[in-house]
């Protein structure tokens, strides 16, 4: 099973002079159980794309298949609410969605909307707080008085508490400090590897793509430029350089070594293997 887009186009403000085709004829296949990165320039249509996954935006043309449901252009899909519970979407800058009196209530808001009992919702909320690294002292604080980064965690916890099967994150780490960023990414990986959730993450950070993701989708001017596995994508760095994407540091290091006389194969894809390869070649010459 996978999530598929068939010839999906999306047009903002159709029928006015503001008409803007944000997605054109997109065909995509997102593997379930994998962690997929969506990358692309500012304004390329990433956010528009991911909002199709929980039917916040309905395609102007084409069809989306997700979790056994079919969303077709021109028809009003049924069972939207259950889809929104199954495909949790964390918005870009989600800190603006907080409104409850206390952090714990805000996190429990989502699950309660999907018919989970008050008690169970609070239990899930506490659990989600632990996951995102907010300790108990925050439970009774007002979410509006937290710092930007703390708000972000509350917002992410609010979606995690819904326990969705597919987790969609639109630039979840933008503006977080490096430590929190790493912790967040580790959390998403854990949710993916241990809890079997399909994770789709929009990011501008190639290190994150390289280190955490299985697959990558490149969006360019509302079209899919490439779709491949991460290892395939970064193997030959000229491919991503050709798309104006700076490869991750490890790949750049490999390129630099090769430019300066080393001969390291493009199958070398992690730091350890790189160190070994360098060691071998130095020894052979020494």
């Amino acid at each position, binding site marked *: 099973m996978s999530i598929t887009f068939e010839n999906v186009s999306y047009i903002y*403000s159709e029928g006015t002079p503001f008409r803007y085709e944000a997605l054109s004829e997109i065909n995509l296949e997102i593997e379930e159980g994998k962690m997929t990165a969506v990358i692309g320039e500012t304004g390329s249509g990433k956010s528009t794309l991911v909002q199709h996954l929980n039917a916040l935006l309905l395609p102007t043309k084409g069809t989306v298949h997700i979790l056994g449901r079919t969303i077709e252009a021109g028809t009003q899909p049924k069972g939207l609410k259950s889809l*929104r519970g199954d495909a*949790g*979407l964390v*918005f870009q800058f*989600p800190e603006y*969605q907080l409104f409850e009196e206390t952090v714990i209530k805000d996190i429990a808001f989502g699950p309660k*909307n999907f018919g989970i009992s008050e008690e169970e919702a609070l239990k899930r909320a506490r659990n989600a707080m632990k996951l995102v690294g907010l300790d108990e002292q925050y439970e009774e604080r007002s979410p509006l008085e937290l710092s930007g980064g703390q708000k972000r965690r509350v917002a992410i916890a609010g*979606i995690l508490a819904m326990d969705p099967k597919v987790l969609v994150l639109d630039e979840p780490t933008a503006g977080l400090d490096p430590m929190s960023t790493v912790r967040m990414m580790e959390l998403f990986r854990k949710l993916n590897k241990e809890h079997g959730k399909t994770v789709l993450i929009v990011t501008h950070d190639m290190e994150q793509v390289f280190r955490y993701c299985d697959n990558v989708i490149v969006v360019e001017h509302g079209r899919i430029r490439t779709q491949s596995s991460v290892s395939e994508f970064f193997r030959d760095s000229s491919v991503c350089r050709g798309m104006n994407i700076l490869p991750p540091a490890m790949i750049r290091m490999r390129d630099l070594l090769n430019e300066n006389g080393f001969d390291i194969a493009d199958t070398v894809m992690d730091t350890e293997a790189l160190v070994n390869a360098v060691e071998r070649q130095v020894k052979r010459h020494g």
Partner: protein
Amino acid sequence: MGEFTLGRYMPLDSPIHRMDPRAKIMAMLLCLIAIFIPAGWIGYGVMFVVISGVILRAGLSFRFVWKSMKPMMIMMIFLFIMNCVVLRTGDVLFTVFGISIYKEAVLQTLYIVVRLLLMVMITTCLTATTKPLDMTLGIEDLLKPFERIHVPAHEIAMLISIALRFIPDLIEETQRIMKAQESRGVDLKEGSLKEKIMAILSLIVPLFVSAFQRAEDLANAMEARGYAPGEPRTRYKVLKMTTADWLLIGCAALLLAAMIVLARMA
């Protein structure tokens, strides 16, 4: 809400778009006064034709104007019902469910509907063809003479321009928050009363928070660039009236005069 067109600027290029905002505002005021002169159906017919001409000249479609009207439909239906209940004079037109509908009530409502329609058409001619910033420049200039009687022309213009500037932002923000809450299972259409109240709260609170945040940011940004209310400022854009602009005002005045004559004759 993406369909919201009332008061929206349409970035087209037409002779109407290029006119001086002051001329357009003056002409609009004259036309608005003209609407309230009871010149009978001929008068309204003339106005409708003239304003339709302007709308077409500005490159706008009637569909756009119609969309602007839509939000007022409920109000008009309400008005019609009120009129039918309250106005019980004149001839009985017909009877439904034992309630007689009087001719007077229908006529009165029709008058109001036609006036509203004309009003929306006229204001659309202005707002859809004038950039918000030009509009405020125009308002400021037109208010200038009243500064002598201590009307803070510049401050009023600044207030209006900021309000106009924020309308699209707030609409966008509302849509964004709505989407974010819908992702959390909020259903704005269905649900019990309690759920509905929660849904509205989940929209209003973040909207207020972000509106205040924006206001503060803007105030800081303005102060950081040395803005002080009441101090003299120079202008980047200087408005200039052309012959066409004077002609527009002239035509509007003529229309008003025609209405007065028609009203006298009736």
